[in-house]
């Protein structure tokens, strides 16, 4: 349940209370000297207030807030972290009025498909109205987590000067800001412990040396992540910063830090638990003798997470052997290494739980992973060559091996060129703990390569056998049958991604009618039309969003939806499309539908139509 639903249901609770005649007396606070015995409800409120402090899960808190008005108020006063999954579902003012004592905010903007160039730039998700509201309402704000938001340097400046006790800034997949913004945060937020830029797009137009802007005397930094920054940094400033940040535990540098420089940093910070190695290649013209990386890694006894390897020179990989036995998380997704280069590393990683890798390691590399990493919980295999092709370096063979070796697997993202139902079925049987199953067969409409059948049975087995599944992404040749399986068995599924799949409206209908817990549905290039769209009318207010692009939905169909459900915003846009001469199409290019307590947003750009 989300904010919006809690709000709407709370109205119902009010009505019910009034109708039922139950009186909810507010707590009475006596002034003056008397102590009068507290009303029963006041006791209740005191208890609630003291118990609620221990409730952290937002879903639990949402449930609590629905009981009655006094529980609602008590909960609102004691919630210290708010989570807003869609920045347009509620206005900053409304959030601030309900929750007054907030120290941590999680705010998400654009839907995930924006990452794949499916959304026009300047669509929205601006942080500005939020920071302006929070600057007044939440002066005690300590933590901010933003995902897919548009954040400007000005926003960062407002943030930096408004929150005196600010401690943690995490920007994931955000854009719109640059080094000037980073510099303001570094210099003004003296209590900063966490400064994480993850997959963010940082511009360096201003070319400010932000790393030099941290407090001179020493910092409280515990985590500094900037591996996504695509321009050089001032290494001396970085070295100096690491030297005077004695609490630093996580450091992920970008690819402009070479091996020699990495060595210098590691010497300064052997207490690191999480290291992003930067380029992992030596400088172009090495002048000194090679740094003793093995000693540096050996000294990092607490290291559990390793990433980076942006331009790996495999000869240097053996340097990481000393830490392999301890690491639980290894990200090789930028390392263009072969199976033979991977094996000596991976065979020591017995404790590995999270592994991200490039498919350059081939099925053979994955077999090595399956042989050693018995504790693996999360695997992501990324494609080095994303063009559609008949054969790729990883296939059903790798997936089969993983399913047999890594029985505790909970989450998988697997890119390949070809797959079989048998391997997927095998995974569904061997890995009952799967919560996230995302299989991307890069070749669109590709059937099972050994039987020629659609991939229906494979995905069907996943939803049937993996009883904990909450997230599913499908690919390959899929008929409506696959969707009927999903609708029938995917009762816990919250996030679904469909692309180039299905035969007809029935497919989407099965899903919308069957998946009662569905919250996020992203669809592209599927033959689903208005009739399918209508079948979800009962459910859209329970979802965070529905995205459909290049399907068969018409403007009229979208308009009907918009008219029939209150408090759901229907955005329709079409951009960079050249209409065929004489083509009169009512087909909508992109439909983005989300629930909201507010009306149509005021900051929609011209190409967005809100119906």
């Amino acid at each position, binding site marked *: 349940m989300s904010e919006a639903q809690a709000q709407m249901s709370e109205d119902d609770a009010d009505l019910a209370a009034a109708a039922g005649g139950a009186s909810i007396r507010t707590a009475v606070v006596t002034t003056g000297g008397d102590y009068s015995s507290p009303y029963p409800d006041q006791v209740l409120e005191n208890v609630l207030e003291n118990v609620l402090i221990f409730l952290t899960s937002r879903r639990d808190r949402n449930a609590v807030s629905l009981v009655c008005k006094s529980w609602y108020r008590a909960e609102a006063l004691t919630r210290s972290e708010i989570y807003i999954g869609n920045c347009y579902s509620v206005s900053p003012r409304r959030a601030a009025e309900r929750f007054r004592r907030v120290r941590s905010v999680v705010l998400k903007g654009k839907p995930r498909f924006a990452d*794949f160039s499916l959304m026009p730039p300047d669509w929205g998700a601006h942080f500005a109205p939020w920071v302006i509201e929070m600057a007044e309402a939440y002066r005690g704000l300590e933590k901010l987590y933003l995902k897919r938001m548009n954040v400007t340097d000005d926003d960062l400046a407002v943030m930096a000067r408004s929150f005196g006790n600010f401690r943690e800034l995490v920007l994931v997949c955000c854009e719109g800001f640059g080094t000037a913004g980073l510099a303001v945060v570094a210099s003004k937020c003296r209590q900063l412990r966490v400064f994480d830029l993850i997959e963010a797009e940082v511009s360096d137009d201003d070319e400010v040396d932000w790393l030099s802007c941290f407090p001179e005397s020493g910092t409280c930094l515990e985590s500094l992540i900037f591996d996504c920054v695509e321009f050089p940094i001032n290494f001396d400033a970085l070295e100096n910063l690491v030297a005077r940040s004695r609490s630093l535990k996580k450091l992920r540098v970008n690819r402009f830090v070479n091996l020699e420089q990495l060595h210098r940093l590691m010497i300064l910070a052997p207490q690191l638990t999480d290291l992003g190695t930067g380029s992992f290649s030596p400088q172009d013209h090495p002048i000194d003798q090679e740094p003793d990386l093995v000693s540096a890694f050996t000294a990092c006894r607490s290291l559990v997470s390793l990433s980076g390897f942006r331009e790996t020179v495999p000869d240097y990989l053996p340097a990481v052997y000393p830490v392999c036995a301890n690491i639980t998380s290894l990200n090789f997704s930028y390392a263009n290494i072969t199976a033979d280069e991977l094996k000596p590393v991976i065979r020591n990683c017995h404790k590995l739980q999270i592994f991200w890798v490039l498919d350059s390691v081939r099925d053979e590399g994955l077999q090595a992973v399956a042989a050693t990493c018995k504790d693996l919980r999360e695997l992501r295999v990324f494609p080095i060559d994303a063009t*559609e092709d008949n054969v790729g370096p990883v296939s059903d063979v790798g997936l089969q091996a993983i399913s047999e070796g890594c029985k505790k697997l909970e989450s998988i993202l697997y890119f390949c060129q070809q797959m079989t139902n048998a391997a997927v079925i095998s995974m569904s049987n061997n890995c009952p703990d799967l919560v996230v199953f995302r299989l991307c067969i890069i070749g669109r409409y590709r059937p099972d390569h050994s039987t020629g059948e659609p991939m229906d049975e494979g995905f069907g087995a996943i939803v049937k056998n993996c009883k904990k599944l909450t997230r599913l992404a499908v690919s390959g040749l899929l008929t409506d049958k696959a969707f009927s399986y999903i609708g029938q068995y995917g009762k816990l599924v919250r996030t679904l991604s469909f692309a180039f799949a299905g035969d007809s409206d029935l497919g989407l209908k099965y899903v919308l009618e069957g998946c009662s817990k569905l919250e996020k549905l992203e669809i592209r290039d599927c033959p689903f039309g208005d009739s399918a769209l209508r079948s979800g009318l009962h459910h859209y207010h329970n979802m965070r969003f529905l995205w459909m692009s290049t399907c068969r939905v018409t403007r009229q169909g979208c308009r009907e939806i918009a008219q029939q459900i209150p408090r759901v915003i229907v955005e329709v846009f079409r951009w960079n499309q050249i209409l065929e001469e004489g083509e009169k199409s009512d087909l909508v290019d992109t439909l983005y539908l989300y629930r909201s307590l507010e009306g149509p947003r005021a900051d929609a750009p011209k190409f967005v139509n809100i119906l």
Partner: protein
Amino acid sequence: MEVVSLLGEMKGKMNFEETELRLGLPGNISKLKSNIVNSGATNVNGKRGFAEAANVDLKLNLVSSKGDGEIVDQAAESEEIKNLLGGAGSTDSVVKPPAKAQVVGWPPVRSSYRKNIISLQKAATKKGDEENEKVMSSPMGATFVKVSLDGAPYLRKVDLKMYKSYQELSDALGNMFNSFTIGNCGSQGMMDFMNESRLMDLLNNSDYVPTYEDKDGDWMLVGDVPWEMFVGSCKRLRIMKGAEAIGLAPRAMEKCKNRT
């Protein structure tokens, strides 16, 4: 946007034709110019056939939200396949997309990640040593330069190593900034914009001139030097209004004189 022919047009206006310096093969520029003239002639009314339109359509779709100017090769066939497979269920009617065909946003890998991986791929196949340019280039061979268009509200970045010629670069730049220049088209709409002669009129009327800053910090007109030399020495691109570029040509000549 035909960079080289723009150059030619501009120079014509400034009467520099006689003193035009080319370090490339002689006759290069005039050949390209004549290509433009020819294609202009065949597109009298600015409308193209389906396949070309589809190509163009797909290209425009590639202005990624990250604005990095990466260009992915498109095949017109993938557009056709999308249409063909509208209701296809059986495997028989599935037309396998041709190898190396690509669709916007597919596979679903983040565009910034793709950009990095493409550099990795190039590095893996690179042989021999390259010129050691410290022009915002990683050791593995990508050369990102900032591109600014005078009057546009944002900068873009392109990896020069992604292109093999001025033609490819100019196409890419045209795509990147089309949303801005279309605004200047007024009510013409997209179809007219894609007509090259109309495009050239627009750009000529607006006097946009592509220039770049080279290693020495000097601003030069794009198109003077052979492509490889350009990639090696270009630090930054700026598409400026003609009025400002007037001062450039003499300097360019001076530099070239000093070099040869």
